[in-house]
């Protein structure tokens, strides 16, 4: 027997995920245009791997295949894995990353909606610990032709030092730690563009555009992107103001690395993130803070992935303590 309500908004997990995929397209377009067209090949590899892994796990778990495969959540995970991995990774590394995300993080915890950790971020952390040098090979903007890229991804040949350069975050970090130099001096290097990494700035803009689309469509709320961006700007701004020669500006931090991708697509993962309005602010600001500390003082050039996982752990605590007051209990106007 069916109970009320008998009508439903035409909303589905599939449409939510599809909207996220559409929102990723500007960033991907910028990626193809500015960095490496081979990312499209990676996306295909990752998508196929994700769907196969999802199907296999569903089969093993004795769950119906069709609803879970068609909800597109595995595809979103796959794309996010690709977009936070270096584009010139050999194909098997992409496959491995996707398998970690889908098999270990998603299905071993119970499938869609059950994972306490962000799948793409666990994949990134696992891979950068297991393959630190592979995961640090980022191509400089627009210097590799497509054939070279394809050789790197699909072939076995890797003469890496010749073709990869330091990312903007990496250059700043190693440059400053080497001493005898300042941020301004470093920014004149070829890795840097107007605000962040040369070429990578455009990706940041692409992700920003996609993020605004998600906000307009009501898939995400303003809380997390705002708290993340403002949080990162405030903490980096504080250090920058005290010592502009030794710390990069907030604008640089926001335009570099995965900041924009994280602000709109990673931090905002509903499953593993905080869910209350105040909780979302705390969660996203916490990620920004930890990510900055790792960037500025840690062992890795980019700290967002670790920051996300650390804050994932805190989600139950955050949600429990940020329950909004319910109707009639917030001391509303009486008379």
């Amino acid at each position, binding site marked *: 027997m069916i*109970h*009320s309500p008998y009508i*439903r908004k035409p909303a589905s997990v599939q449409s939510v995920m599809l909207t996220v995929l559409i929102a990723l397209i500007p960033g991907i377009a910028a990626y193809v245009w500015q960095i490496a067209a081979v990312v499209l090949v990676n996306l295909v590899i990752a998508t196929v791997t994700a769907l196969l892994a999802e199907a296999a796990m569903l089969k093993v778990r004795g769950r119906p295949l069709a609803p879970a495969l068609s909800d597109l959540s595995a595809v979103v995970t796959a794309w996010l894995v690709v977009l936070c991995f270096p584009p010139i990774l050999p194909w098997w590394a992409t496959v491995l990353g996707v398998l970690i995300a889908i098999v270990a993080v998603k299905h071993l915890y119970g499938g869609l*909606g059950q994972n306490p950790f962000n799948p793409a971020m666990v994949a990134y952390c696992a891979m950068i610990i297991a393959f630190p040098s592979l995961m640090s090979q980022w191509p400089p903007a627009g210097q590799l032709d497509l054939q070279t890229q394809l050789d790197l991804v699909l072939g076995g040949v890797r003469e890496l030092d010749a073709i990869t350069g330091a990312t903007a975050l990496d250059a700043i970090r190693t440059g400053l730690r080497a001493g005898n130099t300042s941020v301004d001096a470093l920014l004149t290097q070829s890795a840097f563009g107007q605000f962040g990494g040369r070429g990578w700035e455009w990706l940041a803009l692409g992700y920003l555009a996609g993020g605004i689309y998600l906000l307009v469509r009501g898939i995400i709320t303003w809380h997390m992107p705002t708290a993340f961006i403002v949080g990162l700007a405030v903490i980096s701004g504080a250090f920058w103001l005290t010592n502009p020669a030794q710390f990069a500006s907030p604008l640089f931090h926001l335009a570099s690395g995965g900041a924009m991708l994280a602000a709109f697509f990673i931090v905002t993962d509903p*499953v593993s993130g905080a869910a209350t309005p105040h909780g979302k602010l705390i969660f996203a600001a916490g990620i920004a803070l930890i990510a900055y500390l790792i960037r500025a003082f840690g062992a890795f050039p980019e700290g967002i992935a670790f920051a996300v996982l650390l804050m994932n752990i805190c989600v139950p605590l955050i949600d429990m303590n940020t329950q909004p007051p319910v*109707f009639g*209990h917030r001391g509303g106007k009486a008379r």
Partner: protein
Amino acid sequence: MIARLFNFRGGVKPVSHKNESSATPIVKAPLPPRLVIPLRQSIRSTARCLVQPGQRVLKGEHIGEGEGPLGTSVHASTSGTVVEIASFPMAHASGLETPSVVIEPDGEDRWIDHAPLDYRNVSRNAALAYLRNSGIVGMGGAGFPTHVKLGNGSGIDTLVINGAECEPWITCDDRLMRERAAEVLSGATILRELIGARRVLIGIEDNKPEAITAMRAAASGVGDTLEIVPVPTLYPAGGEKQLIRVLTGIEIAQGKLGADFGVQCFNVGTAQAVHRAIHHGEPLLSRIVTLTGNVAHPGNYEVLLGTPVDALLKLAGPKADTDRYIMGGPMMGIDLQSLKVPVVKGTNCVISASPALFPPPPPELPCIRCGACARACPADLQPFELYWFSRAKNFGKTQEYHLFDCIECGCCAFVCPSRIPLVDYYRFAKSEIWARERDLKASDQARDRFEFRNFRQEREKEEKAAKLAAKAAETRAKLADGTSAGAAEAPPPVSDEDPKKALIAAALARAKQQKAAVTPQNTEDLSPETQAEIDEIEARREKLND
């Protein structure tokens, strides 16, 4: 003029489907062959039956006397013969049965003598009693007795009249306001005077411009204590608490009453019924019901209370592919299990549902914690948390997360991209909690009974022992008298204490001996620890016995 409107958080905007039934005037439904009038017409109260089978009744005649503080009278909706008094299913999700009076109409629809009430020249209590005897209850659905809601006539500043009608498909209040605006306003004025309010705010969703116009036209002559206020169309703006919030900014917490905040709310249908009762002397015998959905002739019908739904549906003509019927709106209505159920005072709409209009829910997917439900919830709850806890049967947590603030409006389930029937989970959790509380109460009572039984048995044993001892002492005294002294001069026992005690001590000693003689079973080969424990217990017992 009120300065501004307030808003409540959340809410949804389903397709309204009002035009299907709102275009045509109200039609008087013909007399059905049988009326089944439930004696339970107001919330939590069943009236005492006043008629017998075979008795002839007139239209408006008392057939049920309201009992208890929430009781209201029940009347015959038309003239005819009482043919049966029995339990019949009523319109309730559970299909519960309720005692009902079955009347076969004689077709004459002949009124009993009735007269209007000059309510300004009688005491307030007399006016409230009159409303109670007229069977006036809230017609928005809950069926709360109006005379109870009118309270003690003080402390209410604002009277809210609810013409929001926020559920899709339903248009009975819309048509009522369009066609009988003056009656609604007259009833509102009576209610205002009885409750002692300073002003009346009539909230109407702005998707009913004709009703707003008609009500404004009628209000122009009434004076400035009464205001027609269009409110934004946003389900559930017609929820009592939500409408009060929109019109006055006051938020009434769960468990609190509007009266605590100086505001009270009545439905437009209730106001009109009050007008008919006071100014025409007519008890509440009929109401307007929207017939819509998958039917040939959607519209609004003035229906006698007790009319079975199947007789009513014939007027609208459900189409062939109709597969079920919803009483009420699509957001909160109930799926009718039987079409024999009668129209009651809270029946506002019957929707014929077809798979095309109301597709069966797609398969449920896991919750992705997207929070759409929390953003839609007008009670500011976290529905997905309540869902997790209900699913896990963690009912303590559901209460911590304010389960009972949920008004079951259905907004959360409406927006859920995983199509989880969220409200079903809350209903389940609520009923489990109620059941547990009942069980707890029952077990408390059982424990009390058991403890009292033990106490009583103990007491009886003591009394018996005392009696026996007394008797034994008497006998012994008699025997002693017989041997030593003469039977005639038996001295009264000096004290019956000592021999009694002696007797008891002797009996106990015998019992102890017996006990010691019996070899305890299964107690060989005891470990020293156990033996020590037993010895200790025995020692304690000895002490007690001594």
